[in-house]
């Protein structure tokens, strides 16, 4: 019996990465022991500067996890403190330690909650298992940052990435960016929410949505976690439709929850589902994209386009973006920061559009002042929806800094 206990107590847990080409990450291995306290072996490329700090942090995290006896081997490649904490916690959990305990890093000031109809022209995907991209992700001016737990994370790394993303939501200042998380497909995605929702992300992207029930499952889970933690702040939802069935159910999905602010499409999976090749012109997905736009507008939410995968082709991206805006989309995804400025340019109203909208708004204001029910510009009468569109366009142009 004693032997059995000893054996189960020494199963080691590992997390993270190290090596010559790894940056801003670390590898931790934790081998539980029965006595002898915490023994830390540390190699670090920043040892002369932060060696003491890393040891101290490792001791604190392990103490918080209730680990008192273990051999801890750390190979650090200049990881920031929130990454160190997440990796140690992941290694401990994989060693069967610290179950049910969270070790949270210090929190930067929580930004203002995001609004339902804020600009979502660009959202930059950051792989949830690559911490080196986290800290500077927001510098490049995207409207949103997506910390991704789904396709960019290897199945074996899901648990560790979840902790990294949780810690990033607390410790990283994402500046003006909307803080988004793409969870995994359900049911794994519901487990992601357990770690993510307490850290108040602004928006959750739900992948591979094919029916309203999936959205409801997510929104119920969010509500439950928020109640448990006493959080009143809204978490918006953006379902991603990536299959023929999902496209067929677009409107039902878009209206499944009042927290939905946008509907988007994943073209890689969608074209794979149809068994067709994804082309630069997107003819094969024209119907699906139009369906998204129509369903989103019918439901009163934003329609957001897919990503443009060829990072080297900025001209192609611009063309795609201009088309996309003409179809009724309000933004698209980015897989590299260099795409952000191009997308913002593509989705910006043209000078002619702004000028026309300005004239319509001026005519509208004049009519309001004069108490006239009918707005007219020159000899033409302007319908109320046209006025509304002009007001919205001016609103966006101001937000983009194109006019005062």
């Amino acid at each position: 019996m004693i032997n059995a206990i000893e054996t189960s107590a020494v199963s080691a847990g590992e997390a993270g990465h190290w090596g010559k080409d790894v940056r801003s990450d670390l590898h931790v291995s934790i081998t539980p022991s029965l006595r002898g306290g915490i023994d830390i072996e540390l190699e670090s490329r920043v040892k002369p500067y932060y060696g003491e700090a890393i040891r101290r942090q490792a001791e604190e995290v392990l103490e918080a996890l209730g680990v008192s006896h273990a051999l801890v081997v750390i190979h650090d490649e200049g990881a920031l403190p929130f990454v160190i904490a997440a990796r140690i916690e992941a290694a401990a959990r994989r060693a069967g330690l610290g179950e049910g305990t969270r070790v949270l890093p210090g929190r930067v000031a929580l930004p203002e909650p995001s609004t339902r109809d804020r600009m979502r022209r660009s959202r930059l995907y950051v792989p949830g298992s690559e911490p080196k991209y986290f800290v500077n992700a927001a510098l490049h001016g995207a409207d949103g940052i997506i910390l991704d737990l789904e396709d960019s994370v290897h199945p074996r790394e899901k648990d560790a990435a979840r902790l990294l993303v949780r810690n990033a939501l607390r410790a990283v200042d994402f500046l003006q960016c909307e803080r988004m998380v793409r969870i995994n497909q359900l049911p794994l995605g519901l487990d992601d929410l357990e770690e993510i929702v307490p850290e108040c992300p602004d928006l959750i992207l739900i992948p591979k949505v094919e029916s309203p029930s999936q959205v409801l499952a997510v929104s119920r889970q969010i509500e439950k976690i928020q109640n448990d933690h006493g959080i009143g702040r809204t978490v918006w939802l953006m379902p991603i439709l990536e299959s023929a069935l999902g496209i067929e159910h677009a409107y039902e999905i878009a209206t499944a929850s009042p927290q939905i602010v946008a509907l988007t499409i994943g073209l890689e999976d969608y074209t794979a589902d149809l068994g067709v090749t994804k082309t630069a012109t997107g003819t094969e997905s024209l119907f699906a994209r139009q369906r998204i736009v129509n369903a989103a507008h019918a439901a009163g939410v934003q329609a957001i386009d897919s990503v443009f995968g060829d990072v080297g082709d900025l001209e192609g991206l611009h063309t795609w973006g201009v088309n996309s805006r003409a179809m009724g989309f309000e933004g698209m995804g980015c897989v590299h920061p260099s795409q952000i400025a191009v997308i913002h340019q593509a989705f910006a109203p043209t000078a002619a559009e702004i000028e026309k909208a300005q004239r319509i708004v001026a005519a509208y204001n004049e009519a309001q002042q004069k108490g006239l029910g009918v707005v007219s510009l020159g000899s033409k009468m302007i319908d109320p929806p046209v006025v509304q569109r002009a007001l919205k366009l001016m609103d966006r142009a101001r937000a983009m800094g194109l006019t005062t």
Partner: protein
Amino acid sequence: MAVLEKNELVLNAAGRMVPESVNGGLQTPFMGAGKYRPQGRKASPPVRTAADYPENGDKRVADLETALRKCGLRDGMVISSHHHLRDGDRVALMALEAAARIGVRNLMWFPSASFPSQADAIKLMESGVIDHIEGSMNGPLGDYCTQGKMRGMGVLRSHGGRWQAIQDGEVHIDIAVIAAPTADPFGNCDGSHGKSACGSLGFALADSTYADHVIAVTDNLVPFPCIPWQIQGNNVDYVVEVESIGDPTKIVSGTTQITRSPDRLRIAEFVAQFLRDAGIMCNGFSFQAGAGGIALAFVGYLKQMMKDAGVKARFVRGGSTKYLVELLEEGLTDYILDGQTFDLDGVRSLANNVCHVATSPFTSYNYHGKGNFASMVDAVVLGATEVDTNFNANVVTHSDGRLLHGIGGWQNCLAAGCTILAVPSFRDRIPVIVDQVTTLCGPGELIDVIVTERGIAINPRRQDLIDAVKGSKLPIRPLPDIKGEVERICGGKPQRPRAGERPVAVVKWVDGTVLDTVWQVP
């Protein structure tokens, strides 16, 4: 061995402790930029008689060993070499190994820069052939020096400072060995032709005129005359023909690469925007940028802005690369004044375009010249390993004190109208903006702008620049503000690595005074 006691250290005007004497020579501590004005006459080479040289102009000898013997190589002499072949150079080691075969000892090797491929010089130091190196050291040679294993002290000089040290007699070169991609039997040399073409040979010019003896080593011997010639055969004693002077793949890059890092691209774009918004980018302006990833990307951004604004530069200074050559060929600058040539496009352009001109540290950087180009350049973009809140910068050591880079033209370039350091705010959790630089290479009074991915800091001494960018959309921030943000991200200030107590090298200022000390890393 030059063992120094603590009482031989003095405090210089930059507040750094520096040795009073280095390798037996009494030093002048740094007095402040532009303050030191030495008197006297320049050093000069010995008088020679043309009657002692072959009338047919054929100065060829069988091999380097023969040439060194004929030059009278003895123990303790100074042998110089040059880094225009960069990491591909074979000539310097070839010469030093020939000296080892001759059996001399205690040489001082005086390269214009050393490279990792020359790590075998360590063996020659271990065996006593070389006593010490005066010249930039990095990689294995840098570690050898900072671990305190070198017998004499290292002396790190800028390109201009090397010329100054030769001219004021601080360093007397006994034998200069010049690697020549093309040469004739008389000793005329050129760098822009031949299988080992490297571009300008400017670094070897001072040595060719001031050394007691000069040996040209080439793998592309042409009949007299070698046209064009940058090194004059009239200064050369012997010509040696060898199979290969270097590894072409390491001499120039096929193509120099722009950084792909989004953070670094952001820094590069900020730098270009700063030049535009500050009004520095205007017709007839000039700038200098190196061949680092950020600098190359900067040129790309600036080029587009120059096109958009219809602006043309009068001259740009290299390190020339494809990107500068494009500016010249697209009519966006009148001239390239080229200090060294980094890629094949640069070599081709230097060889074929009369508006692409080879320069030297004499024209560009020398403190003992009657002026130099560096101070006439409107803006320069440089890197650094550390910057402190007084805008002092370090370019030679890691934050832990190990030698990392040479000074190159870096110190000399600080004389530009607007000196910009383009640096990430931290590297691998190590903040670049610190309380005090580990090694002082550039006094803060000469450094005007720090551009990081988190914002741009302007030296408060440059109110004119602060005013010039008022109203610009650029993220101008106080340096301590950026520093504070980075320290928060990195989890507090780094601990200071334990400082060594024995000086292993000194950093010279451009005027020959001692700016700072590199300490043995414990």
